[in-house]
């Protein structure tokens, strides 16, 4: 049996992303990737492979045409030969650069896919012969690829889990680094929401029995490999729409170029086929046409780098359109456990007394709530520095303190020391304790408790029994759900982008309202049942909104499936993962913010480069039209605003610029145009300035500079 493979990812620097989370980012510029993409780029020259991009296919056909012209000119010993060869070479390079960008984007995923595949190779499984009896059935060793849905397999410490499944028996520590890149092991156990295990991960301890839930070839690992390799890449709706525009532009320019033949015949200056091909290639949107596949693949790759797996590119794009985010309160908006926020002393009790007692009652309490009480008390002056005893102080000496742990019977916890008993607990429990000793809960304390409950906080009452007996109720500690710092700002940023946030919680409406106000969400859904969530999604969608939601439980599955973008936590159940169209391997609900940003970035990159590509044409006209016709109509030389050296150098420079700009923009296509959470108006202003105005100006400069170099080439001037 094969044992655990080391984690796929090597440690890499972490980069702060939009959500404030740090993610691993692999460099795409190592030499191996850059060189490795070359053979693939050459392979993509096959006309069949080129057909999927009509723009680049047109360039390929143009290249072949000019190649034939070159042959003809060679045979007739034409003086134009050097120029023709130069143009042809650069046309071929244009195609190559386009293919290379795509190959490079694919190559990044390929390396990851290879190591994923390696982690699975030769995997075997210990299949239990009977699907009914867990104990006493016989084991047999089979290849992982022979496992089918419903099979039961046993995994023990050191085993690699052979396929996706659900634990039906046992509990184990599992190393999921092969999938998630996270080295800290996680606990997986039968029953509940943490029962799902993924093929390719490694059991570190104990023994579990797993019921296989995936057929061979459709496991999580298979999907991940297909995804990072781009094998299942289909055009997304938006890509198709863009494609239509690009094809239309190509057809227009084809007609423009062909019509130039009869038009110029009248002037007695028909351009040579090479020049016409050069003009056509310069005019059609080659920049964006070459980079569209790379942009799409890079977008998916960016998602994978954020440890999110999407089932399709479509889901990524949809993420950019999301207008409503539905988020669970716990874990996303709040820390998920309650923390002490305030001490309310009973009438006649000194505040410091309550703080001390509350601290003492919690010193031995290791729950997050207990620790938060100690922290708050120490913040308010009851710290060891201020002379308060620590647990060690109290435990030392002849009369060590005795911790009283929470029990279902007493429903209180606390500390006994030197005959003094300090307790904290729910008001009913503490009240009962006090009554036993003949005391009672003061009405003011009861009122506070009611008030706090109404506000959505959890009140804990603190009481003390002296060495002589008799219980005094000291006051109340307020425990509240604490909203994560900075979350309100993040929601405000989302609002600026036009995204409404809806908080989902099982809390009562009052509590929900209080937290919603604190976190700054736009709306909340209190006491939410799975049906409520589903209904809410449907009602949002009926109003034309696109909804994203996160979830992990089986009961979230319908809502995840109904949402336009459903993100399941990897820690969640198999049902949730299957219903969702994305899985977050880090199980971090705030990841949704990054997913939205990636989706938007994808569209922005596409739109910006299209604008750039089209805007470029203006300068190319100014280069080529005077080059074509200034000989017959000298007045048109006025259009040669760049002062290009000669007609040949002008045309060649435009072609070279056209090819080089693809290479220059590859990093941008792979990295994506920087996305900022600003309003649509501001985003447009910014990108229009950079890519629209920049696209108008840049080629004037670029073509002029190239012309200065080309002009010195022998055979051109």
């Amino acid at each position, binding site marked *: 049996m094969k044992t655990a493979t080391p984690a796929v990812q090597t440690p890499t620097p972490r980069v702060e992303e939009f959500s404030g989370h740090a993610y691993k980012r692999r460099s795409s510029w190592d030499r191996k990737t850059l060189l490795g993409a070359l053979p693939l780029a050459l392979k993509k020259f096959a006309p069949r492979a080129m057909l999927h991009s009509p723009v680049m296919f047109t360039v390929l056909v143009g290249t072949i045409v000019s190649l034939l012209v070159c042959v003809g000119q060679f045979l007739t010993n034409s003086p134009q030969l050097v120029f023709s060869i130069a143009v042809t070479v650069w046309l071929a390079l244009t195609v190559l650069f386009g293919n290379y960008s795509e190959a490079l984007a694919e190559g990044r995923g390929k390396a990851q896919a290879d190591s994923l595949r390696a982690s699975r190779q030769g995997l075997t499984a210990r299949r239990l012969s009977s699907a009914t009896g867990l104990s006493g059935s016989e084991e047999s060793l089979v290849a992982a690829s022979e496992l089918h849905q419903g099979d039961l397999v046993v995994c023990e410490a050191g085993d690699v889990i052979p396929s996706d499944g659900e634990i039906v028996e046992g509990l184990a520590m599992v190393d999921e680094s092969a999938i998630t890149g996270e080295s800290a092991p996680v606990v997986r156990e039968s029953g509940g929401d943490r029962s799902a295990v993924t093929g390719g991960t490694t059991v570190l301890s104990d023994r579990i029995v797993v019921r296989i839930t995936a057929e061979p070839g459709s496991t999580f690992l298979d999907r991940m490999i297909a995804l990072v390799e781009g094998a299942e890449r289909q055009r997304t*709706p*938006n890509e*198709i*729409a*863009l*494609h*239509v*525009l690009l094809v*239309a532009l190509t*057809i*227009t*320019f084809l*007609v*423009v170029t062909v*019509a*130039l*033949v*009869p*038009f110029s015949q*009248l*002037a007695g200056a028909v351009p040579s086929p090479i020049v016409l091909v050069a003009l056509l290639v310069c*005019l059609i949107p080659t920049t964006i046409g070459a980079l569209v596949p790379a942009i799409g693949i890079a977008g998916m790759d960016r998602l994978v780098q954020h440890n999110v797996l999407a089932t399709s590119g479509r889901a990524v*794009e949809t993420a*950019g*359109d999301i*207008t409503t985010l539905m988020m669970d309160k716990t874990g996303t908006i709040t820390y998920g456990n309650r923390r002490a926020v305030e001490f309310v002393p009973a009438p006649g009790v000194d505040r410091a007394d309550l703080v001390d007692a509350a601290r003492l009652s919690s010193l031995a309490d290791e729950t997050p709530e207990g620790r938060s009480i100690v922290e708050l008390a120490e913040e308010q002056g009851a710290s060891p520095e201020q002379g308060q005893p620590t647990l060690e102080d109290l435990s030392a000496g002849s009369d060590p303190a005795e911790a009283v742990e929470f029990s279902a019977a007493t429903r209180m916890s606390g500390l006994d020391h030197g005959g003094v008993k300090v307790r904290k607990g729910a008001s009913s429990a503490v009240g009962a304790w006090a009554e036993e000793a003949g005391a009672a809960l003061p009405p003011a304390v009861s009122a506070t408790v009611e008030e706090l409950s109404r506000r959505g906080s959890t009140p804990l009452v603190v009481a003390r029994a002296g060495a002589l007996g008799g219980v005094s109720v000291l006051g109340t500690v307020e425990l509240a759900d604490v909203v994560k710092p900075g979350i309100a700002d993040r929601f405000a940023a989302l*609002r600026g*982008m*036009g*995204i409404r946030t809806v908080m989902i919680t099982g809390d009562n409406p009052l509590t929900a309202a209080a937290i919603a106000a604190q976190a700054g969400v736009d709306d909340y859904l209190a006491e939410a049942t799975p049906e409520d969530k589903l209904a809410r999604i449907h009602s949002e969608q009926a109003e*034309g909104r696109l909804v994203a939601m996160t979830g992990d439980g089986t009961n979230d599955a319908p809502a995840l499936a109904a949402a336009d973008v459903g993100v399941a936590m990897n820690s969640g159940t198999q049902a949730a993962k299957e219903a969702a169209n994305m899985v977050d391997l880090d199980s971090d609900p705030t990841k949704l913010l990054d997913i939205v940003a990636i*989706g*938007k*970035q994808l*569209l*922005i990159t*596409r*739109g*910006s480069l299209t604008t750039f590509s*089209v805007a470029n044409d*203006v300068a190319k*006209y100014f280069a080529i*039209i005077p080059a*074509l*016709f200034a000989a017959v*109509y000298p*007045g*048109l*030389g*006025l*259009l040669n605003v760049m002062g290009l050296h000669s007609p040949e150098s002008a045309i060649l420079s435009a072609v070279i610029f056209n090819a080089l700009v693809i290479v220059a923009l590859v990093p941008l296509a792979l990295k994506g145009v920087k*996305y900022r959470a600003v*309003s*649509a*108006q501001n*985003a*447009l*202003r910014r990108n*229009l300035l950079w890519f*629209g105005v920049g696209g108008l100006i840049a080629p004037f400069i670029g073509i002029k500079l190239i012309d200065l170099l080309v002009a010195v080439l022998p055979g051109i001037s």
Partner: protein
Amino acid sequence: MKYSWWSYGTQMAILLVLLGVAHRPLGMYLHWVVEGAVLEGKAGEGTRQNRVERVLFRMAGVSPEREQNWLGYARGVLAFSILSVLVVFLAMRLQALFSTEGLGAVDPWTAMNTAISFVTNTNWQVYTPETTVGIAVQMVLLAVQNFLSAAVGICVAVAFMRGLTRAGTDRLGNFWKDLVRISLRFLLPLAAVSAVLLIVAGVVQNFWATPVHNPYTGAAQVVPGGPVASQEAIKLLGTNGGGYFNANSAHPLENPNSFTNLFEVFLLLVIPSVLPWVFGRMARDARQGYTVLGVMGSLWLLTSTAMAWALAAYPGLGEGMEQRLGPAASGVFATATTLTSTGAVNAAHDSLPPLAGGVALFDMMLGEVAPGGVGSGLYGILVLAIVTVFLAGLMVGRTPEYLGKKVQAKHMTLTALYLLVVPIVVLVLTGIAVMIPGVLSQASAQGPHQFSEMLYAFTSAANNNGSAFGGITSSGPALSTMLGIAMWLGRFVGIVLILALAGAFVTQAVVPKSAGTLPTHGGLFAIMFGTVTVLLTALNYLPALALGPLAEGILK
């Protein structure tokens, strides 16, 4: 002749004020005509039919309240237009049977070309009206087509606006109802009022020629007459442009003085610039309409100024200019007429300085969108708005949407096809025409101007403008047919695509607005919108323009 910038500025200022004053009340009225029930608390009031309409609907067997989907609407437009072509063609062929002037049958090629020309709102005139068609043909056929082709344009624009602003239905309205209401309630009263104003200002309106004696020489002379003012009003209002006389608005009986000249320019601009306001009303967001109007207006001001510059900078200005009113009046008229698909002229465009002719060509190449033909200008520019929205939407990271309607692959396909049709028709047919020596020689000039004449003819025909570089003789089977094809394709392929696009949008739900929605109003969007419009035109036509007017105009 000296060019007067002062005169230019005054005319433009007066036009701006007049259009500014007129567009809102006329827009409200047109909105009521097409949508009915805008007066609060009187729902359904406006949709009641009057007696004439009831009779018309009953005769045609149409139930006006049954709305059509895009296919039904398109079928209505096409059936009506094909029928119109046949009627005009046959009547011109049979003119000998009813002409009181003793005019005979019109040449079949001329009749075919003219029938298509008037039904497509082009009003390209192969014929010389004075010698070819009598009062009956002018009034009963051509003037009626002036109303109907204009109404069809407005119908399609209204259907398209409904497509963008309605949701959850596939109905775009009833073509027959729209056609009748727009013709009878909007165009007819407007034309009647305008005709009266023209008569008051001195445009002739009678049914006979007037024999006169020259008071100085005593020679006998016949001054032609006819129902000119009534034709003139709809010729301009409907952006038709077919003149009662061959000289069109350069004829003193069509356009006697500087008041009528400016009034005629106002008339040809007014409906196209009212429609954006209606659009804003239908979108329930006046800013949408004003943004469209702003882009149209800016392009009008820019090209008018370019025209003025081209005229002012030309040494030896004079030939072909409106002699009585000065070159500034010719420039204002020439820009307005080429930007609106009207094609009426008060100067000989063929004799414009080369660059001024180039501006006139470019105006038409914009696709007749600034403000464009009645109806066609609005839907034409909205298509460009969709392209702008697509690019801008991507640049802000959202699936692009216009008025809450997502622009997806099927919409882009129809949009792209619409934008492809006219340039392809112009470039391919011009290319074919210059390759056939017999056809090429019908353009009388030599060198680049000969090419300009041919390019102008096909640009004018495919964009349904109708003005011409007069040096071209467009009669004869080959050129008449090619121009007829250009006019028909330019008009009706576009209309079918527009209605299909409306049909694709109308069924879509509306995405609610948010801060992430790209605003399709305001300066930034308008600047991009205008730039996209100019850029697409320039990219399509720059090589052709370089070989025509630019080659002619930039001399070294």
